[in-house]
């Protein structure tokens, strides 16, 4: 039986009727119409579905949508800053060639964003540790790592400033 949940996604309140066995990932992509978050493995191994839930990066495939009732979710669509420009992570991913097929990219961006929100000046080791839950088939990670390092030099964007553009 469906239940109505109330979820703030990228600063917007969504009221959605969902069955309890629907994952947050499926509801974000389906009922909420936000297809930026990707389904890779659907079992929490690849990190492609990483979103920020109440300030913490999680695999949306392993959260039931119903568990997010009353919560705040940030997806890749919410990374755009308040003046409409790209998050420094997005800019540097593009500039430094950290995007090839792009399938892992939203998950990596959200994992990196969560890392920088908690630790604006991570060491190299802390960056590697921070994105260890995200798998990329294309890039070999070097340019991803460089892009995150470059983004740490830019101003960190706090969660309160995100808007969906």
């Amino acid at each position, binding site marked *: *039986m469906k239940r109505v949940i109330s979820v703030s996604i990228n600063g917007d309140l969504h009221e959605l009727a969902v*069955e*309890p*066995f*629907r*994952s947050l990932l499926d509801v974000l992509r389906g009922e909420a119409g936000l297809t930026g978050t990707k389904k890779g493995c*659907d*079992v*929490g*191994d690849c*990190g492609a579905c*990483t979103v920020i*839930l109440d300030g*913490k*990066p*999680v*695999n949306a*495939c*392993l*959260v*039931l949508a*119903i*568990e997010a009732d009353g919560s705040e979710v940030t997806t890749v669509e919410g990374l755009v800053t308040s003046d409409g420009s790209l998050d420094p992570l997005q800019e540097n991913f593009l500039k430094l060639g950290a995007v090839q097929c792009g399938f892992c990219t939203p998950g990596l961006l959200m*994992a990196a964003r*969560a890392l920088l929100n908690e630790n604006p000046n991570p060491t190299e080791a802390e960056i590697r*540790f*921070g994105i*260890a*839950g*995200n*798998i990329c088939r294309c890039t070999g990670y070097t340019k991803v790592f460089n892009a995150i390092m470059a983004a740490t030099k830019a101003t960190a964007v706090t969660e309160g400033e995100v808007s969906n553009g």
Partner: protein
Amino acid sequence: MKRFEYFEPQTLAEVVDLLGQYNGKANILAGGTDLLVEIKEHLRSPDYVINIKKIPDLDHLVIDANIGLRFGALVTMREIETHLLVQSLYPDLIDAAQQVGSIQIRNRATVAGNICRASPSADTLPPLIANGASVRLAGRRGERDVLMEAFFTGPGKTVREVDEVLTEIIVPAPAANSGRMYIKHGRRKAMELATVGVSVVLDLDDDICQRAVIVLGAVAPTPIRAREAEAVLTGQRLTDEVIVRAAETAMNESRPISDVRSSAAYRREMVRVQTARAIRGAYQRSGQA
């Protein structure tokens, strides 16, 4: 995902009632990082899922150098991993917690869930057992505490009755002049299940090992104590010769199988290698080395 009915009880008594009523057809949902994977992979198909995250007082964590550590069933791996006092008093628990899955997993996964899932290779089990931890269970017949060393009966099997829920994990205080380490051996540095896990706790006095606890994971149907290896260390100075002998003994006490992750022979060899490293590491951490 296979359909199920969903409950969000507000009290522990309701959880116990539901578990008893549905008698094996209900599963508890805490972090969901085991349950939801198993439902999706058709390894489990509960008709009822009971989310316990609305129950009050299950997310507490109390820690004191003299009293020890007590934490509730809803405490996540990430909370343990980032807790400054746990880092200081139980670095072996940190070694374990921070190597479970990924940060994304650890933000949801609970230590209680790791315990109840009772995988032979679960990372938090060896250090908790080595520290003498107990779990508190609440069921229709009331509450009981079970020593973790006696909790596991086989792969995925524990002494928890169908109507019981694990509410708390209780860890005794570390002894003065003790050192502790957990080493996870795996094919990858992250997002991996242990092919061998070794936990060592050493109580030292005047540079002599008064007491050693060695717990091996992933090399038997449950985590096991390597008691003969412990006896090699007890009462001794931890020279290279003693450490090597203890590691060989631990290797011979292990009973690994060959599976998709590793062969039995390789696992045995890694027990030998990692037990020596964990003993040396625990000794270093005791401050007596």
